[in-house]
């Protein structure tokens, strides 16, 4: 992952082509295509409104739930896609001389593209649910980049181990629903007794989801704590991802 690689136009072209392939493959042979990406949060939204609205005494709970759900889905799904990116592209990895970092990066690019596409109708829906647009929306793109750093780093770390132990992807799909309830999406943090709220902050996902709540629900710039912690977590993930990838990429060909 040297500087020259990230500036190499052939590398950009390859990453983009892989991302386009990923998106094409995801919706090939399906009638509803990209709408599946929207259906999942909509169904969850409906359930959350029906079940959790009564216990959450906050304004515009539907908007709170929707903005949380969209980005929860984005983060949890794209980490899994980055984790499995090496294995998904095993044939290419073994036959074409391409830097293996292309695979996680292209998975990330595809996930962002998918998010932006579904975000268009969701954004309109948010206005109906009480979203007030203001300048804080400008924080979205920079914060999305920070989130992408977190996803890519954590995914790269777990994805590298996953080449050797496929348990990782199974483990991830098992624990991620638990994290859904650990992260305030279906409920507001205020629902917890004040003395226990610090528990939520032990969860790295909290800072990312709460920042998106800041932007799309509270219509304010992410708080200093949210942004700072997200940034630190992202930097740490990228660091461990890079170290693991660098150390173990030499074993990829013989284990994939």
């Amino acid at each position, binding site marked *: 992952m040297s500087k020259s690689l990230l500036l190499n136009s052939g590398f950009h072209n390859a990453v983009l082509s892989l991302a386009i392939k990923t998106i094409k493959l995801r919706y090939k042979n399906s009638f509803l295509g990209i709408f599946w990406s929207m259906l999942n949060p909509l169904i969850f939204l409906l359930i959350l409104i029906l079940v959790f609205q009564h216990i959450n005494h906050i304004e515009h709970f539907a908007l709170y739930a929707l903005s949380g759900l969209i980005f929860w889905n984005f983060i949890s799904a794209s980490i899994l896609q980055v984790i499995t990116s090496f294995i998904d592209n095993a044939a*290419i990895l073994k036959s074409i001389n391409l830097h293996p970092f292309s695979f996680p990066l292209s998975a990330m690019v595809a996930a962002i593209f998918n998010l932006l596409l579904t975000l268009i109708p969701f954004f309109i829906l948010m206005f109906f649910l009480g979203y007030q647009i203001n300048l804080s929306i400008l924080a979205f793109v920079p914060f999305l980049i920070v989130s992408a750093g977190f996803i890519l780093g954590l995914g790269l770390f777990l994805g590298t181990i996953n080449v050797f132990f496929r348990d990782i992807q199974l483990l991830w799909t098992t624990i991620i629903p638990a994290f859904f309830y650990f992260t305030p999406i279906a409920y507001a943090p205020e629902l917890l007794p004040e003395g226990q709220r610090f528990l939520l902050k032990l969860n790295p996902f909290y800072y990312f989801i709460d920042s998106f709540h800041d932007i799309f629900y509270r219509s304010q710039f992410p708080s200093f704590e949210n942004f700072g912690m997200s940034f630190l977590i992202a930097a740490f993930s990228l660091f461990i991802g890079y170290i693991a990838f660098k150390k173990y990429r030499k074993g990829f060909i013989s284990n994939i």
Partner: protein
Amino acid sequence: MENLQPMIRLTDVDICFYIQENGFVSMKDFLLNLGKYKLLQKSFVLKNVNLQINKGESFALLGKNGSGKSTLLRALSGIIMPEKGKIELFGAVAPLLGLGVGLEHELTGIENIRLCCALMGMTKAEIKKRLPEIIDFSELGEAVNWQVKRYSTGMMSRLSFSIAIIKQPEILLIDEVLSVGDIGFQQKCLKKVMEIKENGATIIFVSHNFDEVSHMCTRAALVNHGTVEFVGTVEEVGEKYRQLFEH
């Protein structure tokens, strides 16, 4: 060998596979054994390989299954990094490693051409320019618009061969892929390989078909138990190769 300008030079090359020799199959085993063993065990696939292949040469690699020929080609194409030693290449490499590998079965032939070309480092403009040429060479006709999963093995090898040779490589690595496809296409591929050769390219050829090898190549190396045991003319190496199976 009128021209002895080196095209490929391997100096003391070791190539390793990293495998979990302790046979961990699950996280539980791994966690229970943590600290007892090294995570990955090194295993030598190629050891101490020294080889020089010159410009314009057609060079064959002969050896039993599993002797390390394909790994050597992968190393030459840059897919595997050598553990030790130096691999020097003095030209652009086009690897043809196995048939249909790298083809995405859910995509159509054309989509695959675009993808593979981009992954091989071609620009959009280049791909657009070369696309008709590739389709034409593959002789797939209408079938380029089909999903590759509906292709026969012969059609897949046509497609991957047509993609691999399009860049007019200076070094062409061929791993037993010419033996598929019907006779007509085999002839065409051989002709194309000869044409690339006549344009001054260097060709490295792995095949078990000795007739093909002796027809195409002048020099060869015998790969056995992970080393290059012998380098000589095709006839000499062919003789040694046959001796391997005599006892």
